[in-house]
């Protein structure tokens, strides 16, 4: 008997094999898409937005690429999501996680075709992931105690992270920048304290780390351009008309003279406010909101440097750097904590004038000024640097370090392989498949660098047969190299997150045996 129509008109339903195939294909397509960006010789992608202006982004960052794609396949969406989470959580490894999940599914597909039930595959994957994680845990190096060594670890990690990005030319320079910046944070993961300013012009090499704080603002006209031993009041207050906030208040006058009077009173009010602010004994005033001409003039008269319209992050950072507090009322000057710094001056970077605060009380915050040929280069440089900073700040907290260059994958693959041999039953096929999927990562790195991957990976495997080998792929020379000597390191936290979330995602997708797509919501404005 014909089954009555169950769903709405445009809804689709896919069952069993078809559903599984749809999700495998979707996931693998996404993995293949970002695959070529993996590794130091990975390629970039150009993304063109559909919005107005068709703005173009050139990037190598997996999360950025996937974020900008509009995807319809539900399984692919899962992969995009894990990449995003990886970005939020550890900042780097956004491509690896997708590629690994894709490879796991590719292997799973083969197993499913060989009539192994998805649930068996899942339980095999779980055992394998646990085993791989333990293998890594055994091999981690923790140099937290030794400050000197730890710093060199950080340096290596930064260089490894940056080597796959556009900054690889000057990776040493930038690695040093990033490590310095992160060390200043003293263990906090609050990356807001590191400000990145992008100024087109010059070359990437001209980028520098500034110990102080740079505010991308101009100094008001007629105010001092240079202040020594500055006392700074950071504020968030209206400096325009200072509206009466009591609800329903309005001004009603009956003659022109009254208007003038009110205006006078208003001016008087503002003058009072400015007087109060100046009474704090400051010589620099930074406000989040606009400062109108009139108060600005008053400040200029008093020889106070007034900076308007610093954005919210800027204010918070400035408060952090100078050790002041953000003030909104000014009635009791004695208890407001003022920020201090040795010198405020206007500096020029390229064509632009910026305000530079140096010799600040709190050394936590700093500014990295990026220079580069075009805004696209700068954007990509910022993303790369952000990745490096994220990884470093996470490493400061969890200081366990591994070698890079496909070394962790080889170690995991070896351990998983051994496990597969010991495990009886169908599960062992899945465990073996897991190890194959892990091996795919060094293969892709080698392939992307134009090397003979089959040759290299088999060499690597032979090397890793010995206990305690540090062999990995040296992409620069195109051979197997000693990762300890080459100084290629990665953070344990990143690798662990890649491993766990890739397995989790693969598991989720494998469990699905039916996809029901609801009818898309109708847009109100029919095109």
């Amino acid at each position, binding site marked *: *008997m014909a*089954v*009555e*129509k*169950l*769903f*709405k008109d445009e809804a689709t339903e896919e069952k069993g094999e078809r559903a599984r195939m749809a999700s495998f294909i979707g996931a693998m397509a996404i993995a293949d898409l970002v695959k070529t960006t993996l590794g130091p010789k990975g390629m970039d992608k150009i993304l063109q937005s559909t919005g107005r202006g068709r703005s173009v982004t050139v990037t190598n960052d997996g999360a950025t690429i996937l974020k900008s794609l509009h995807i319809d396949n*539900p399984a692919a*969406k*899962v992969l995009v*999501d*894990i990449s995003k*989470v990886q*970005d*939020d*959580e*550890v900042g780097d490894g956004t491509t690896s996680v997708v590629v690994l999940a894709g490879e796991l599914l590719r292997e799973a597909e083969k197993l499913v075709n060989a009539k192994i039930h*998805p*649930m068996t595959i899942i339980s095999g994957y779980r055992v394998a992931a646990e085993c791989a994680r333990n293998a890594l845990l055994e091999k981690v190096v923790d140099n937290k105690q030794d400050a000197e060594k730890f710093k060199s670890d950080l340096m290596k990690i930064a260089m490894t992270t940056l080597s796959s990005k556009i900054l690889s030319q000057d990776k040493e320079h930038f690695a040093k920048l990033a490590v310095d910046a992160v060390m200043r944070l003293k263990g906090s993961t*609050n*990356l807001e304290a590191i400000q990145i300013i992008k100024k087109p012009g010059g070359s990437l090499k001209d980028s520098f780390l500034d110990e102080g704080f740079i505010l991308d603002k101009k100094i008001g006209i007629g105010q001092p351009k240079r202040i020594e031993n500055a006392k700074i009041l950071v504020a968030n*207050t209206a400096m325009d008309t200072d509206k*009466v*906030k*009591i*609800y*329903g*208040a*309005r*001004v*009603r006058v*009956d003659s022109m003279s*009254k208007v003038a*009077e*009110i205006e*006078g*009173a*208003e001016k008087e*009010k503002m003058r009072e406010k400015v007087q109060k602010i100046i009474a704090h004994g400051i010589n620099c005033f930074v406000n989040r909101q606009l400062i109108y001409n009139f108060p600005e003039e008053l400040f200029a008269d008093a020889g106070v440097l007034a900076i308007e319209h610093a954005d919210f992050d800027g204010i*918070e950072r400035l408060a952090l750097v100078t050790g002041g507090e953000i*003030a*909104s*009322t000014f009635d009791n000057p004695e*208890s*407001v904590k003022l920020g201090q710094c040795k010198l405020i001056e206007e500096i020029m970077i390229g064509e632009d004038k910026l305000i530079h605060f140096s010799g600040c009380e709190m050394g936590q915050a700093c500014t990295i000024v990026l220079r580069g040929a075009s805004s696209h280069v700068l954007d990509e440089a910022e993303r790369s640097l952000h990745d490096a900073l994220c990884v470093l700040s996470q490493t400061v907290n969890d200081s366990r370090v591994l070698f890079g260059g496909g070394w962790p994958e080889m170690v995991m693959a070896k351990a998983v392989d051994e496990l597969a041999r010991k495990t009886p039953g169908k599960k062992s096929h899945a465990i073996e498949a897991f190890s194959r999927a892990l091996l795919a990562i060094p293969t892709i790195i080698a392939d992307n660098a134009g090397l003979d991957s089959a040759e290299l990976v088999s060499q690597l495997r032979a090397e890793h047969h010995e206990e305690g080998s540090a062999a990995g792929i040296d992409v620069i020379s195109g051979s197997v190299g000693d990762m300890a000597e080459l100084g290629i390191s990665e953070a344990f936290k990143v690798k662990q997150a890649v491993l*766990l*979330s890739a397995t*989790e*995602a693969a598991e*989720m997708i494998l*469990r*699905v*045996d*039916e*996809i*029901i797509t*609801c*009818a*898309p*919501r109708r847009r109100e404005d029919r095109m």
Partner: protein
Amino acid sequence: MALAFDEFGRPFIIIKEQESKTRLRGLDAQKANIAAGKAVARILRTSLGPKGMDKMLQSPDGDITITNDGATILEQMDVDNQIAKLMVELSRSQDYEIGDGTTGVVVMAGALLEQAERLLERGIHPIRIAEGYEMASRIAYEHLERIAQKFEFDATNTEPLIQTCMTTLSSKIVNRCKRSLAEIAVKAVLAVADLERRDVNLDLIKVEGKVGGKLEDTELIYGIIVDKDMSHPQMPKEIQDAKIAILTCPFEPPKPKTKHKVDIDTVEKFQTLRQQEQKYFDDMVQKCKDVGATLVICQWGFDDEANHLLMHRNLPAVRWVGGVELELIAIATGGRIVPRFQELTPEKLGRAGLVREKAFGTTKDRMIYIEHCANSRAVTIFIRGGNKMMIEETKRSIHDALCVARNLIRNNSIVYGGGAAEISCSIAVEAAADKYPGVEQYAIRAFADALDSVPMALAENSGLQPIETLSAVKSQQIKENNPWCGIDCNDVGTNDMREQNVFETLIGKQQQMLLATQVVKMILKIDDVISPSDY
């Protein structure tokens, strides 16, 4: 469509726009309805049991849900068919009433419908089938009570509770750490349970999720987590022995509800108004300070000036806290929600041992933990996981586990899972059937067959030979006269569900049978479907 004609050959019009409606009558209607019901059941059938598969659902807006929970699948499926909607309702009412077994109830109803179809073909009147089902369900209901076992637990011995929750969780994707999640669920329920009255208010358990980390990091917090941060970036991030003022009034100038105007027409008025305003803010902060509060939690926003004053007076504050969360905080800290500043008194403050702000990951996500509360009756389960869908699914699974634990506290009778209860009922119903003289006998026997379909689906999903396994288990039950033989889904090697520790709640099972029977009865009684035809 059949029409009646009068003596001149003109059709009688009974229903408005009769021509444009499609109409199914009699046996056709019943068969169409049964087919629709069966189709829904078939979708859910593969999700049953520990080896059940998940479904991926794409919502009209393109969001993805991956789930194993029957109620959620049906809810998101957005069905169009009327009978299918009934099935959705069925699963939902099981969800509201019991919280678990939402898939089982639909599969059960589907099986009953399938059996009914056969009886209809043999010419048995639908009402007789319905009545037979009713009788059979009563037999099964009573039989369940007979085979149910009470088990004792108290605040110190929670093992049986944990085992039952683990049975529930084992069918979900989170079964990787079902032990720890089950423990969390049981602890949470016990924390808020009133063991005297055997009542649990699940509203006191808040389930909060955040992407990142791994599932193992999921934790139970004896307190409240609020997804907010301190209103001023420089406020202290940690407060010991906090006294919390819980406010529902904004730190803003008053906005009387009646329309009014304040006219400013002289300079003096302008100035006094300004002073008033400043005094107003000052007063508000001072009032909070006066009663001894060390933390302000507010449902509304703050004015910039008020915010600074708060920070200036060293009074940390959290703004834009949702109403539900506010209530939970009030319960947990033993404070009172204060709607006006004038009504603040020291007694109305809530107390918490520790309030801290915690940052996650590399983005600026922060959350506020309120812990060591005066009254630890409100708890939070904080879920971490690799991606959004995982968190959502974990939330649903935890919800199911919480419901199960609650049901056990209400009524500590259990039956054995893995299809054991269904098989036992099936045997009992089958045996009882022969005693009924009427046509109902057939319906009762059909009910027994339908009961078999749940263990059958379990066996099928676990990759076992369904008929073979079922008959083996059934004969074992009859031979040894023990109602705890079930399907060995996890391939442990024993059919004894007592050994495998697979339990389900008695009320959950009973409810499943009653609800499924009711819906099937309703569907069977329909003999005419009138629907507007497509145009």
